[in-house]
């Protein structure tokens, strides 16, 4: 499980995430909803240790990670699918997946190719030559290879065709069931969030301003935060 307490993050002097606290239970999927510029990416980068934090604590399965380097956080069970996917463009698909392997053994977990058969077909292609949807699958596969207990996905639907978005929702739920993963996904697309998440958190200007369980009525309540 993931516990975030009093997280504040700043770029230089300007603080953009203020005293953020939330917890996500084992096997739970939570969507962090918010418009552009509200602090979703900043929050995720801080959780991964890519950005330094002003204050606060980040715990995965009870282990405090706020002072660790990104690669140590990965070893403690945190995995990250960044906004824009950040595939290694000159590595093949297979090599991209293998970068996530922690052990010296070269075995990619079987379920990765079961979940994303297209990656097996394309395993010798260069990552940079894949389509957006394929790159998204690759980024998830790469994250899963680190054998995480908490998976962070930053706007996974951005720039992806609607037909593939549906698949993505299904696959994320399948992963959760297969691996008992904790998943946090940031989103602007409400229909996708409602399809995957058990609970929706709304972030505005770096603060969590609302929390809804995904039931009837949730759509209306959250959509007013997302309209401009």
């Amino acid at each position, binding site marked *: 499980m993931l516990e975030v307490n009093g997280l504040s993050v700043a770029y230089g002097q300007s603080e953009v995430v203020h005293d953020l606290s939330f917890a996500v239970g084992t096997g739970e999927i939570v969507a962090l909803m918010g418009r552009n510029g509200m602090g979703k990416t900043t929050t995720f980068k801080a959780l991964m240790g890519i950005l330094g934090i002003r204050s606060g604590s980040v715990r995965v399965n009870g282990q405090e990670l706020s002072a660790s380097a990104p690669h140590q956080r*990965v070893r403690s069970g945190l995995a990250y699918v*960044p906004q824009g996917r*950040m595939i*290694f*463009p000159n590595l093949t698909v297979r*090599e991209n997946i*293998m970068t*996530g392997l922690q052990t010296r053994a070269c075995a990619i977990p079987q379920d990765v190719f079961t979940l994303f058969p297209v990656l097996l077909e394309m395993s010798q292609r260069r990552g940079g030559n894949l389509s957006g949807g394929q790159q998204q699958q690759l980024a998830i596969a*790469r994250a899963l290879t680190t054998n995480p207990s908490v998976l962070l996905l930053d706007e996974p639907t951005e720039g992806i065709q609607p037909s593939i978005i549906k698949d993505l929702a299904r696959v994320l739920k399948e992963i959760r069931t297969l691996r008992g993963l904790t998943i946090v996904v940031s989103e602007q697309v409400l229909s996708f969030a409602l399809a995957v998440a058990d609970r929706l958190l709304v972030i505005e200007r770096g603060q969590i301003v609302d929390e809804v369980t995904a039931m009837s009525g949730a759509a209306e309540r959250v959509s007013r935060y997302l309209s401009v």
Partner: protein
Amino acid sequence: MEGLTLEEFGAILVMQGFNGLSYFCVLLLMALGLAIIFGQMGVINMAHGEFLTIGAYATFLLSWLSEHYAPWFMPYYFLLAVLLGFAAAFAVGHLTELALIRHLYRRPLDSLLATWGLALIMQQGFRSLFGAREVSATLPDWLLGSWQPVSGIDIPLNGLFVMALTMLLTAGVLILTYRSRWGLQMRATTQNRVMAGAVGIDTQQVDRFTFALGCGIAGVAGAAFTTIGSTGPTSGSLYIVDTFLVVVFGGAQSMLGTVASAFSIAQASSILEFFMTGSMAKVSVLLTIIVILMMRPEGLFRANVRR
């Protein structure tokens, strides 16, 4: 040049070509190290030549020790010297990374200045340790002499040996880069350092190993260098400019480019040097490179991938 028959002309070309090969080998090994370090962490290592010098002095030391204390070892010492040159340069490179380089990542200008300072310090260190006079390793007998495939053409054995050594090492580096776990981590870090960390790669450790490896390869270049020249405190620094040329000309991203560019620069200098003065040859090569780079700013080879 008058009175040269076509046959003689051909023989000169071939022999100068083989002389160029030793130079090509040293240049290639230097450039390989420089290129993987620059590609990995954006650090331009001006002290790279001094790591060649370390390898050369290591070879000299071993040769001197064998000659004075273990003459029976003379035929074999050179092979050990290659390993020792690598190990010494690797170790010093590792320390350098820890103490200096890791503070300079992605700061090409600062790293240029700092490593230039380091180069001067190392040169002074060599001067204090080994004296200002040049020293020469005594080559084992099997490296002397030459091979005469046809009359009129003499191919020095040391050149052949250095050639084989270079090919082996280059192949080794290629295999390491494209087949090993470290190589994968290195390539991932080169392409996206932040993301590499976020998939669990300890990028600092990869950097340290890469830097040390690049220096180690320069150390082997130093061992090879002793077969074609004598070693002084500034021997390595004489190579640094040509090595830069090779890397820039070949395109910093491509190993194949590095090989092709080291080959053409070494061969062009060597062959031209026979027909004109050394500095004229250098000027001609430099001018040619400038013209080619004006047409292909990314170097001879570039990665053909969408970004």
